[in-house]
């Protein structure tokens, strides 16, 4: 199972000191956070993508390329890549390039983005969000899998005789997750292609997350990629830890009370009950996190949101240290203890996808169609024999 950190890259005033980091300081902090994640044995670092203040992460592959050069094992991912407003041609190029730079330590999570004004800045309309996600992602698959692409769609200028360069490392496109909080169409999209499904989880009640993941699992099985419990599921989580629960709450409360997303609203206690937020001891975080599998099933990737709401970078680095040293080792053991043998522990990695060979369905633009054609051919052969 993979564990990691995901960042939204917000520049937020520290409510306890009034300090607002500069954009440069925030970028540097995110870099240090990623390096710390590798140092303490976490598996993944994912950066958000935003094109409006107060966020700095407008150029994910630039940042991930820099982090790649300073790390050995860390998987570099996104949370999320805007499949709606980005040109899929540029996503294909940028992330294939990052694959080459990082030796294949790349996967991506597609998301739509929920900030209305960003869409027109990129010539799009938020009301087309689902259609953009469907068309652009399908084109991205083509660009990574077909040597020459001829294509015409609704949203982008047509392509004739186009070859995306560089081709994916080892001719093997990166694994893709699709993130959505409440759109069944995106769970359906992930299931159709046999991709991963990530639920942000952290601003929602568990019943909601459970329904979305179950829908994805059921449709994953429907499309023949495996049993429902073998589908690739990732979850977000949000924690703050100290030696005692009282100390954790005391330190975190001013950040919670003033946080951009939920500040000045529900109490820390109410929000902890409604959502997966856990503020307490490492043992409490372990217990709560293990409980996630009770409602989404055994899953493959757990990401934690740590660096937000103006928390100083030194505090964030301490939190990652606790996660890596005290929490994740126990989670690894305990999650594997409860996982049935037929349920994969890890999502696909570059190594596993290369090992599966060029004929694996990962290389099909529409795996469902290829599988069905193969089955039809096999049953036809059976009849004639």
């Amino acid at each position: 199972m993979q564990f990691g950190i995901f960042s939204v890259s917000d520049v937020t005033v520290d409510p306890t000191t009034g300090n607002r980091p500069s954009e440069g300081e925030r970028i540097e902090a995110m870099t240090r956070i990623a390096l710390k994640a590798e140092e303490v044995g976490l598996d993944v670092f994912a950066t958000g993508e935003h094109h409006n203040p107060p966020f700095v992460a407008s150029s994910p592959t630039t940042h991930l390329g820099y982090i790649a050069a300073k790390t050995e094992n860390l998987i570099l991912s996104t949370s999320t890549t805007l499949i709606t407003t980005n040109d899929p041609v540029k996503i294909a190029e940028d992330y294939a390039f990052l694959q080459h730079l990082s030796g294949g330590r790349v996967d991506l999570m597609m998301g739509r983005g929920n900030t209305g004004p960003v869409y027109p800045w990129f010539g799009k309309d938020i009301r087309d969000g689902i259609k953009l996600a469907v068309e652009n992602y399908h084109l991205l698959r083509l660009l990574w899998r077909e040597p020459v692409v001829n294509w015409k769609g609704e949203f982008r200028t047509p392509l004739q005789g186009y070859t995306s360069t560089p081709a994916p490392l080892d001719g093997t496109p990166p694994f893709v997750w699709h993130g959505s909080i409440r759109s069944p169409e995106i769970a359906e999209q992930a299931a159709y292609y046999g991709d991963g499904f990530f639920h942000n989880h952290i601003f929602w009640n568990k019943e909601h997350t459970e329904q979305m993941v179950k829908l994805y699992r059921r449709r994953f099985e429907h499309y023949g990629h495996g049993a429902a419990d073998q589908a690739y599921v990732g979850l977000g989580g949000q924690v703050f830890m100290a030696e005692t629960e009282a100390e954790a709450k005391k330190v975190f409360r001013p950040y919670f009370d003033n946080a951009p997303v939920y500040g000045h609203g529900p109490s820390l206690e109410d929000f902890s009950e409604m959502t997966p937020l856990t503020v307490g001891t490492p043992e409490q975080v372990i217990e709560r996190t293990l409980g996630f599998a009770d409602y989404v099933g055994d899953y493959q990737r757990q990401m934690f949101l740590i660096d937000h709401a103006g928390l100083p970078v030194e505090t964030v680095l301490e939190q990652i240290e606790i996660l890596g040293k005290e929490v994740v080792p126990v989670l690894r053991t305990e999650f594997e203890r409860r996982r049935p043998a037929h349920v994969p522990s890890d999502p696909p990695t570059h190594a596993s996808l290369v090992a599966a060979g060029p004929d694996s369905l990962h290389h099909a633009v529409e795996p469902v169609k290829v599988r069905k054609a193969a089955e039809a051919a096999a049953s036809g052969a059976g009849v004639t024999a």
Partner: protein
Amino acid sequence: MSRRVVVVTAGLSVPSSTRLLADQLAEAVTAQVTARGEGLEVEFIELRELAGELATFMTSGGVPTAGLTRVREQVSSADGLIAVSPVFTASYSGLFKMFFDALDTDALNGMPVLIGATAGTARHSLVLDHAMRPLFAYLRAVVVPTGVFAATEDFGDKGLADRVSRAAAELAVSVLSQGGYAVGFTPNAAGGPRRTAGTRIEDEVTPFSQLLEGHSGI
């Protein structure tokens, strides 16, 4: 088949004149439905009790709290709605608006609604037609022609009882004329989008082949 009408009331004091009007409307609707040989269950929702959850919902990007989720389902699955607000500053109260802001846009499709309002003076009576009626029109509910406004002085006037029974008769006819709605299942009579509380991920999903149609680039 027994029908179910939900009464949403936004009064703040206990007892409130808004609840008093709501009680009269509920009793009159019950009388009108039973007079037509049908049964009616009436359920009251005091928005005051949801004030904290509504604030949480608004300040957290829409985290569904347990009580609010229950009430949203209760409202969308009803056969009719009686909605009563006090008039504050020339309109329905902020609490009343917060509740309807927290509903799914398809939560009241085709819903028979009786609107009522209370105020200290009759000068506010156009709030019914200038504020409440457009709100429910936006939500594609079917508001009965008679709305009931009660200024403080109306509680001693026979005219109020007449308006209450006329409005109640209209709502009773509207409730009885539509089949039972089950949330998320029955298409409405006009063939428009079905009514849904929007609190659950529905089991039915558009197959991806339909979503991809016209977008595969071929």
